């Protein structure tokens, strides 16, 4: 049985201002990686961040769940709010924050554990559930939401690393979902996958936006065009343009955006 998310047509509801970034500057040591980024991200929408390598899009993504805190020389200025709450405030527990703002990386990185334990790990350390039927429920529903349940339900005890690349990436998405996040950050989630596995992930992203806010960094502009409703173009640490995806890919306002998406960059 497949876990059905609410009907897609009725679920087309954006919630404006889920995440608000205001005047964000990021430095790696003396090098300024992001210049004065101001960006509003709608809830229940997929926002794509595009731009050439080194433009700062991944840096910005990593600001949204304070992953940059793990880099010693990295400093973040400005304000980033999640539901109106400053995520860089002293009172914020980054472990809790990262449960609310989950992340999926470029290379699938399942834990060297069973499929079951890959999913159960997060809920267990966050105290959402312990062993038993309650945890079984979380594992099943997470795998169902990630569209992986039918493929793995008979081998939950096998190692997650034994799955195919595409399955591993969906396992990582299931793992992110298991702690009931509100926002899922995806950094090039399909760049290591073949087109069929990519299509599965894209279909999944489209379904997930019913319940989550998704921000995806991608080099694949066709992918950004396919999966996102909003697209932001980053260039040399600046956010050049953010608009409806349709507008960005048919009629971008800025010459730099146009140059990049039509392959006239540089």
């Amino acid at each position, binding site marked *: 049985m497949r876990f059905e998310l609410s009907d897609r047509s009725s679920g087309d509801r954006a919630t404006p201002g889920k995440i608000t970034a205001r005047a964000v500057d990021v430095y790696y040591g003396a090098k300024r990686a992001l210049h004065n980024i101001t960006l509003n991200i709608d809830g229940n929408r997929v926002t794509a961040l595009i731009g050439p390598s080194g433009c700062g899009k991944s840096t910005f993504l990593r600001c949204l769940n304070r992953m940059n805190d793990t880099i010693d020389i990295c400093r973040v200025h400005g304000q980033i709010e999640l539901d109106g709450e400053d995520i860089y405030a002293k009172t914020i527990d980054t472990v809790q924050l990262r449960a609310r703002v989950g992340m999926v990386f470029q290379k699938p990185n399942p834990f060297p554990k069973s499929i079951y334990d890959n999913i159960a790990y997060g809920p267990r350390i966050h105290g959402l559930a312990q062993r038993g039927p309650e945890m079984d429920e979380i594992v099943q529903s997470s795998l169902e939401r990630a569209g992986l349940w039918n493929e793995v339900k008979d081998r939950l005890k096998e190692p997650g690393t034994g799955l195919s690349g595409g399955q591993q990436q969906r396992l990582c998405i299931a793992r992110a979902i298991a702690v009931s996040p509100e926002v899922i950050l995806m950094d090039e989630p399909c760049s290591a996958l073949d087109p069929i596995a990519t299509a599965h992930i894209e279909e999944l992203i489209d379904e997930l936006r019913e319940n989550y806010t998704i921000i995806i960094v991608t080099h694949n*502009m*066709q992918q950004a*065009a396919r999966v996102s409703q909003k697209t932001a173009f980053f260039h040399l640490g600046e956010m050049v343009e953010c608009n409806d995806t349709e507008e*960005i*890919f*048919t*009629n*971008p306002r800025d010459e730099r*955006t*146009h*140059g990049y*998406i*039509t*392959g*006239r*960059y*540089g």
Partner: protein
Amino acid sequence: MSKEHIVRSYSEELRRLTTLITQMGGVAEAQVDTAVRAVARRDADLAALVIKSDERLDQYERDIDAEAIRMLALRQPMAGDLREIVSTLKIAADLERIGDYAANIAKRAMVLAQMPPVRPAGGIPRMGKLVQEIMKDVLDAYIDRNLDKAIAAWRRDEELDDLYTSLFREVLTYMMEDPRNITACTHLLFIAKNLERVGDHATNIAETLHFVVVGHSLKTARPKGDTSSFAVVTPQCGPPAASDQEET
């Protein structure tokens, strides 16, 4: 679109596509010009030439479609490039229709050449001249990406509509004067209608160019001067049919 593509062959393909449109536009212009001359000179040979050449435009359209579809599939164009390529599909279709109208005018010119001349035929070259000016301006605007020129031409379509409406009335009156004119006049009416339609397709091209350059369609509605759909021409006297019958 000042910069070249990083992949040079992409830019070359785009240039080739717009060159095809330019060439096709030139052929379409010549077809309309020749068809109108065939009507004016009552020249059946010239008309036959137009009918024969229509195949060239069909071939251009097939070539442009194939090239545009190939580029859509292989290059996955975005933004200005996407608008450019999609526009060639639309413009090629408009030019192909213009060619069809020219061929139809030529067919009617062949019929008219075998009949005694009728007076309203004098209005056709005037319409033809205006339609050619509009087409020329629109196609030049396409080549130069000159939006002002395209919009000016787009507005002139109203003049063409006015000319058509007045020709329509004239032809109707002439038919009522003498039923023996009806065959020739009906052909004239269709020729005039065809020229009016050529003008409409030329304005379509101007609108498409607007989309290519600006990124959205022309917002204001095109001025409409063709009121012939509402025209009523009542005979001055009773139907001449009764007296005609008495004579025979």
